[in-house]
């Protein structure tokens, strides 16, 4: 079986701030969703005129 791109042979890394505890991988996915959400609102849609 091919090796994973990242070394997964260890416990997950966690961000722990007061009562908030979340894995780093989940933080990355949430940040990516926020970036894509902002891009979806701001990026021009192809074929749409600029006047309307």
């Amino acid at each position, binding site marked *: 079986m091919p090796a994973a791109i990242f070394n997964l042979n260890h416990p997950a890394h966690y961000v722990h701030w007061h009562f908030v505890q979340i894995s780093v991988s989940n933080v990355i996915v949430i940040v990516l969703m926020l970036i894509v959400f902002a891009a979806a609102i701001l990026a021009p849609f192809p*074929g749409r005129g600029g006047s309307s």
Partner: protein
Amino acid sequence: MSATETDERSWTAGLRRRAVTALPPEKLLPDQQPSYVASWIYVFGVLSLSALVVIITSGSILALKGPAWWHLTGIGHFFNSVHLWSVEIFFFVMVIHLWGKYWMAAWRGGRARVWITGAVTFLVAIPCALTGYVSQQNFDAQWISTQAKDAMNAVGIGAFFNLLDFGQMYSWHVLLLPAAVVGIVIAHVLLVRKHGVVPPFKLPDASPTEDVSP
């Protein structure tokens, strides 16, 4: 009794009349949309539907071939990964779709049922994914099921939704919950077609426009 009178009184004719009244063909399959739909934020609903099609297709193949195939063969690993990553993409784009519709207040204009069916789809998709993780037939599934059972017991549904019962979880995952998700999604799409895409908020000095784009 004439044939016409029979048609009028039959339940199939009544159902047809109601269906055509609610969703005439030009509304069910429109070829034009309002100009404000030309935005990336409206694309994420269709992306969610596309991911769902891949999920159902890859899941059907996994169900036909079985755990030995998806654990021990190269092509089985491939379809196992397609199923996993299509679910990840489904939730990713569905959440962005949900955020977009929330900030547009997409329940405006009599669209409450459109919003509710979308939100319920998200809620039903969560146990659908959870039952998939515990149906993998590996140590990961054992770990997740033994951890998550405590949450089910804490809210009092552990006797009916037993994460340690593989047969029950597999049935929920491959039949009951996917059928619920697909059924609610179909209702959601038909309601969107019936009510139309929610328009953006009007600016205070904006004049009403009726322009459409193909």
